[in-house]
């Protein structure tokens, strides 16, 4: 790790907290920050003791997407291949987050713009501070919402709102995002950390393996037909029923005690 890490990580009671840490640039991405984030996600993927992932931003913003200072494009120069950075960094990131078989909470502490908005919305449970906002800024630069932005928006907010947000690039407040069903909860600014913390610690004690199966079911639903989804539910239920946590859950219920889930 360099002396000045762009990604901070902390593991506490089964919760891995990843903090995007370029506060002077509103936590916008350059290639090095992508590499550090990738290493941090590896911890969540490989460490069995991590049973919940929290992603948040340092300072005032959550994440302002790509750092345009890192782009160096001027009129008259050869066009850059933005697809390369999407393919190399943003797409793998979103794929890894959505495939991670553990719950992810995004604690949106401030502005989430461009790819930053997509990353925020890629959390399984998104909690925003009242002062946070979501901006689909791509349209102002002649670009397209990437990092899954064009998929998450219609999924979460519906066609009409997705179009409005993506074509106009207006700032959507946390309250508005909540009303539109894009996020789970809005808190007072000063309550965000504590709300997220207690929810993350709760999730880290839950049947993690089963939660992973739920994630898979929900994400698959977007592209499956009902028939395909029914088959998938059968298969995932088969797997869930073989977990230790299922037996523990049933036993605890029948014996009227609190279950002690191991996440397996």
């Amino acid at each position, binding site marked *: 790790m360099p002396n000045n890490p762009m990604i901070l990580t902390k593991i506490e009671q089964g919760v891995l907290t990843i903090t995007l840490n370029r506060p002077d640039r509103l936590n916008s991405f350059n290639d090095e920050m992508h590499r550090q984030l990738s290493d941090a996600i590896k911890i969540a993927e490989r460490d069995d003791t991590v049973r919940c992932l929290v992603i948040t931003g340092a300072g005032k913003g959550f994440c302002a997407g790509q750092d345009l200072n890192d782009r160096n494009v001027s009129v008259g120069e050869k066009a850059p291949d933005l697809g390369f950075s999407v393919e190399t960094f943003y797409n793998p990131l979103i794929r890894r987050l959505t495939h991670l078989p553990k719950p992810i909470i995004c604690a949106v502490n401030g502005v989430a713009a461009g790819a930053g908005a997509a990353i925020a919305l890629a959390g399984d449970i998104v909690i925003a501070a009242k002062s946070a906002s979501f901006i689909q800024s791509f349209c102002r630069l002649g670009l397209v919402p990437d990092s899954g932005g064009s998929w998450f928006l219609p999924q979460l907010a519906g066609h009409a709102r997705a179009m409005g947000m993506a074509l106009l690039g207006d700032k959507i407040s946390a309250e508005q995002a909540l009303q539109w069903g894009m996020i789970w909860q809005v808190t007072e600014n000063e309550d965000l950390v504590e709300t997220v913390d207690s929810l993350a610690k709760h999730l880290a004690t839950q049947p993690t393996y089963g939660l992973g199966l739920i994630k898979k079911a929900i994400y698959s639903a977007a592209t499956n037909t009902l028939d395909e989804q029914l088959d998938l539910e059968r*298969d995932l239920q*088969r*797997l869930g029923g073989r977990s230790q946590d299922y037996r523990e859950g049933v036993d605890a219920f029948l014996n009227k005690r609190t279950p002690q889930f191991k996440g397996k």
Partner: protein
Amino acid sequence: MDTNWILSHQENRVLTLTLNRPEIRNALSTDFLELLAEHLEQADNATDIGVIVITGNSRFFAAGADLKELQKQTVASATTDRRPQIWRRISLISKPIITAVNGYALGAGFELLLASDIIVAGESARFGLPEITLGLMPGAGGTQRLIRSVGKSLAMQMVLTGEAITAKKAQQVGLISEIYVDDLVLESAQKLALRIANHAPLAVRSAKAALNNAQETHLSVGLQLERQYFVTLAGTEDRLEGINAFFEKRDPQFTGQ
């Protein structure tokens, strides 16, 4: 040769062979392939086995051939290589072979799938023929069986670029028959195998042979051969048992006679 290279497990009439050389990603060296052929031939001769399932591990079905062997190869040694003979032996197995794939099936590993009868795969499965990237080309059916299965354009693309395709793509083009969540691939393959293994052995054998003939002959010849197989089954006890059991609404008891 290490007998642990292939784990063998029989349940009911289904034999499961697990390729078990994770340290070399199940690369199919000549000795390894030979051992597999021996297992398959034994199973083919065993009357208590109806169907064979071949699988690998969660990350690799089999990642190609042994590159160290290929490195040493000369025109002379390639000409007298015994691998083609081993592949031929595998293609002569008369019982159905189902391959259950998770992770990578590349090069010779992929060619083993193509030589099998039914391929089922997990979402993580990747299929490819990367030989071209090594200055080589597929040498065990890769250019022939693939094109018959997925058509020219994709077969050309896969062989000439060496890039792998996903399980989803493989299913769209008819290369594999089913996709399951990774953790259920093997047992789903075994269930499928059991359904087949419970059918009349002679009928299964004849049906497999008839289907394989479709790759070898013209339609009119294939239809003739199919008819011959069909007629031959008319003389079996199991055919009578199968039809009687259907009318009597009970499970048939096949004897293989």
